[in-house]
């Protein structure tokens, strides 16, 4: 028999799994909705329990009701904690991904099959909730603002000094044309280039190009 808090527990188990994954699994819209609904139901129960007392409830006079209220309250509190923890785990992950320079919004689109679906995913295939997409975008903006204000240091860049100025890269998926100091390069799938590392770092991080040793 399901009990209050069971759904919240499922959410936290999802969060636990998320911690050990490199990517972000799909957002559990149904579960989140279920848990919030549970909280609302509990709140209604509490309101109807308290109604006959007209705001003058004395716990020691009616222990049974007091206990029911306590159980309801604790269940709500538990659900709140589960919800917050679940979302926090995901936002932590999102921030991590933003720092690593990977494009989550993009990643969602290229699940098996549609490799070229680079545009923002509207609904369906995305593993982020709309709010999370917003969060990720704005966090990315913040990072970019940090970079722009003082220097042109790329905060998310690698800390390893490059060995060579130029590197060999292979194109894993079409990335269109990019401009470099030496003119434009057209990055089509499966082609290979010898390019300046600084020009393509971003694309390597995003998984368009592969660095060849």
């Amino acid at each position, binding site marked *: 028999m399901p009990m209050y808090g069971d759904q919240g527990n499922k959410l936290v188990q999802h969060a636990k799994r998320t911690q050990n994954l490199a990517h972000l699994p799909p957002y559990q819209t149904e579960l989140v909705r279920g848990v919030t609904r549970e909280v609302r139901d509990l709140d209604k129960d509490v309101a109807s329990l308290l109604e006959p007392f007209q705001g003058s409830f004395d716990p*020691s006079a009616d222990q049974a009701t007091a206990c029911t209220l306590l159980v309801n309250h604790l269940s709500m509190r*538990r659900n709140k904690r589960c919800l917050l923890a679940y979302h926090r785990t995901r936002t932590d992950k999102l921030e991590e991904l933003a720092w690593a320079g990977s494009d989550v919004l993009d990643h969602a689109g290229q699940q098996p099959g549609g490799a070229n679906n680079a545009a923002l995913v509207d609904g369906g295939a995305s593993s982020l909730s709309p709010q999370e997409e917003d969060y990720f975008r704005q966090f990315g903006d913040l990072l970019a603002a940090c970079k722009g204000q003082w220097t042109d240091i790329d905060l998310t860049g690698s800390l390893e000094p490059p060995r060579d100025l130029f590197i060999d890269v292979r194109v894993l998926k079409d990335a269109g044309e990019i401009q470099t100091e030496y003119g434009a390069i057209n990055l089509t799938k499966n082609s290979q280039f010898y390019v300046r590392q600084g020009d393509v770092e971003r694309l390597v991080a995003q998984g368009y190009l592969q660095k060849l040793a």
Partner: protein
Amino acid sequence: MSYYDIDSILTDAEKIPCTFQVGIPDLGYLDNTPSQPLKAGTKVSLPLWLAEMLAIANTGDIEGKSFVAFDLPPALGNDVIQALKADPRAVPLRDQSAHFYGLATHMMELSEEQELGAVLRKTFVTRASEIALHARKVGGVGHKKEDASNLGIGGAGEEFLRGLDEWERRLFRQAHEGAKAGKQWMENIKRS
């Protein structure tokens, strides 16, 4: 133990056996009988997050009786404790509870078990050295298995490692990664 700590939340979901001391008409669903009142003296197992507060809440009763009385969960039962006393390494803690130590510390806060603390301390110390040993061994021998993220290791220690509780697993992983990183650093130094 942060509010957002996933493991601590999961620990709070562990169930412990409780006995209701007060009859409560509306809580029948806790005993699988939603239509009937919950009678005083009913035994139900409740998750820690519920049981804890119910057990310490002040009911306003003159005798200071609380809503529920609780017992130690089977994971901390007498036979487990006896087995731990005999040889901590031989007990797969995970079979008792995935969050064995978390559960135990919680229970110790709630009840006055003198002996439990000492037994647990000895258990952890003994097992920790064993864990460290395994963690080093894995990093040293199995080069190919280094990328296996979890406890994917064969051999003699497998049985023991499967019985680690969540906390011990983390310890193992950290010890393992520490040894690995140390080795990697040494190799890099030699090369450059």
